[in-house]
């Protein structure tokens, strides 16, 4: 396995990404989007696709850059730092990983469309308030040569605008099956959810939606073969995003501690705050190791990545939550105002904590794999 240090390529990628995002997608961009009542900025996504980020996990023969999961984590981290609002995780990470695992010509052309920014995908998996794929109740009954899908999904991230939906459903005795459907297929109704992080999510109802065998990704009853790697890629990238979010909130907080004066001195000179800031920095550093490790393991040993990925997501969740809680508290009143950016970090941290499995879910995965 490669070392737990960013390679030169990765460092350069991070620098470039940071430069671009500071200009094109600072927190203000998310604020403007929200104030305009929108949850997606196609122009931003277009620019990102033009830089090739959407193809980070897509083979070169499908028009991708094939840089791997560690590199995807580098990009996600930088996007987390500025809370860039894009379908990167849904499309370029989760859908791309699933399609790549499926393989074949159709998947290849779908990946090419993702890399080129022609199509966006969303993963419709949750049905209740917690991530629990194995508890999927939505049905895909065999009907003639095809299937009829009925059920409800919620918290479909980027599902409000995605062109295609990857839908997990239960096929009788055969088990869980993954479908790849156009979002406008008859019987599909999408309802936007007013999310606290101002990003896109939808509640989606499926009422006797017709699907053919061609709409099935992989084998009937064999959803997990491709879904599991897709989920793990998404979890690792989300963890990377949250580590970037933590770093962004932390930088803002340390800046405030240096600037803000109270009782005649910068508040950052108060030892109690210094120690808390230093502790937070330590937590962020430790989480960074878990993030980089998850990327490395996904790139070298993807079938044995669960421990590394769950470790990364668990650590990223607790660290991001600590970073935003300390961030708001150390900012005092101003941190509570909508005018200031810290609240955006706090709200995104909360959504990121839940998406694709929360702390408890991933901690239990770690425990199980460590025999505890």
């Amino acid at each position, binding site marked *: 396995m490669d070392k737990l240090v960013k390679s030169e390529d990765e460092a350069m990628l991070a620098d470039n990404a940071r430069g671009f995002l500071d200009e094109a997608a600072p927190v203000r961009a998310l604020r403007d989007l929200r104030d305009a009542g929108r949850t997606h900025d196609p122009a931003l996504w277009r620019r990102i696709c033009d830089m090739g980020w959407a193809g980070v996990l897509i083979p070169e023969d499908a028009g991708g850059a094939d840089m791997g999961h560690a590199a995807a984590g580098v990009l996600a981290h930088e996007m987390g730092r500025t809370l860039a609002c894009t379908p990167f995780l849904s499309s370029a990470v989760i859908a791309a990983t699933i399609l790549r695992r499926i393989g074949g010509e159709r998947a290849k052309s779908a990946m090419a469309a993702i890399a080129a920014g022609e199509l966006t995908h969303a993963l419709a998996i*949750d049905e*209740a*308030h*917690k*991530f629990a794929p194995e508890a999927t109740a939505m049905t895909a009954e065999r009907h003639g040569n095809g299937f009829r899908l009925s059920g409800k999904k*919620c*918290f479909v991230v980027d599902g409000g605008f995605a062109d295609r939906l990857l839908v997990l459903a239960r096929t009788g005795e055969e088990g869980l099956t993954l479908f790849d459907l156009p979002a406008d297929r008859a019987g599909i109704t999408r309802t936007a*959810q*007013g*999310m*606290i*992080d101002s990003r896109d*999510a939808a509640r989606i109802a499926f009422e006797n939606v017709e699907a053919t065998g061609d709409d099935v990704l992989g084998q009937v009853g064999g959803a997990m073969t491709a879904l599991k790697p897709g989920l793990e890629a998404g979890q690792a990238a989300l963890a990377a995003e949250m580590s970037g979010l933590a770093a962004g909130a932390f930088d803002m907080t340390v800046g405030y501690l240096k600037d*803000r004066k*109270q*009782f005649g001195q910068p508040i950052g000179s*108060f030892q*109690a*705050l210094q120690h808390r800031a230093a502790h937070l920095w330590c937590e962020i550093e430790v989480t960074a190791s878990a993030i980089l490790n998850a990327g490395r393991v996904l790139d070298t040993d993807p079938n044995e990545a669960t421990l590394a990925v769950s470790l990364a997501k668990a650590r990223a969740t607790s660290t991001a*939550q600590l970073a935003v*809680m300390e961030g*708001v*508290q150390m900012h*005092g*009143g101003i*941190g*509570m*105002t*909508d*005018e200031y950016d*810290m*609240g*955006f970090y*706090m*709200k995104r941290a*909360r*959504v990121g*904590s*839940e*998406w694709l499995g*929360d*702390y*408890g*879910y991933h*901690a*239990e995965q770690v425990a199980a794999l460590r025999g505890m």
Partner: protein
Amino acid sequence: MQDDDRLNRFRSEIRAWLEENCPAEMRDGRITDDAICWGGKNWEFSSDAQRSWLERAAARGLTVPRWPAEYGGAGLSRAEEKIFLEEMERINARPPLKSFGISMLGPAMLQFGTPEQKRHYLPQIARGEIRWCQGYSEPGAGSDLASVQTRGEDMGDHWLVNGQKIWTSYADKADWIFALIRTDREAPKHKGISFLLIDMDDPGVTTRPIRLISGASPFCETFFDNVKVPKDRIVGEANRGWDVAKYLLTHEREMISSGGTGLSGGRALGAVMAQMAGEPSAQDPVLRAAAIRCEVDALATGLTIERYKDMAEAGKGVGNASAMLKYMGTELNKRRHELIMSACGSAALEWDGPVGNRAADWLRTKANSIEGGTSEVMLTILARRVLGLPGA
């Protein structure tokens, strides 16, 4: 024994009274700011039930149970009040009225006000006719509350007030404001402040809501531009307003802390856990363990609030130790709402989603440990004044 008999009789009476007077709609246990009546000239009752519940409670003195009857209270002892609150909780009754007049100005006025002031202002508060807000903080001052810059120039029969306050809770809905104003600019920081009462309708008073991260705007900025404040609109002596403010801060700390604790709050977490997860123990042991720890701490903190109330009634001054209630109560409340959010999962990630506006409640708790003195200020108060640790 005789005492017990008397209290048992009181319990029967109050239970019967509640049975008769508390409308069924008011028995849903909701205690959030939007469910409870705050009163004031512009209050719009959410229902007839809310109105009659206020009127009946006020007539019986039970909006301010411990205040003397002549000021609109019921004159209850601490033990009686406890019974009243237990009986309220038993039927899940909403409080009939909540206001900063009750929790803050009233106690200050009972302590520092003139007889005329008490007779004039307190009954208005008890009946929910006048809604008050608090003007302490100023921009840039943060935790340093005594660095008041808003000035009141002595013009003989009135002060001419100019300046700006921030974090004035619900100033946009309030009728009057009680505010710290610097009336002597030569005196040391804590010595030149007066505690003035200002009608929000007076010329020169304007207010502007501050939007918070929760989307709500409970706080405002409030501006004073050549506002004339007559000389009798002062609580306590001129330039001694810091004494009143300190007294009130203690009360505020207790109020904020108890908002976050108590048995009912503790039940809230357990109930949410059960409701959201079916068999909670089976679903997420790590979350459940955190919730249990929170419950243990919540129960003990609730008992501590009781104990401090009992101590106060026994004449044992609580003083700076109230900073403990503020600190522990608000930090606990933040923990609890983090757990509630976790228990609710994605259902709580929408504004006004399927489980109500849990997210707004959660974000609101983040302010608890900032407003009324940050947790850091509370810890410093405790370290210096209670533990006697030396200054740097």
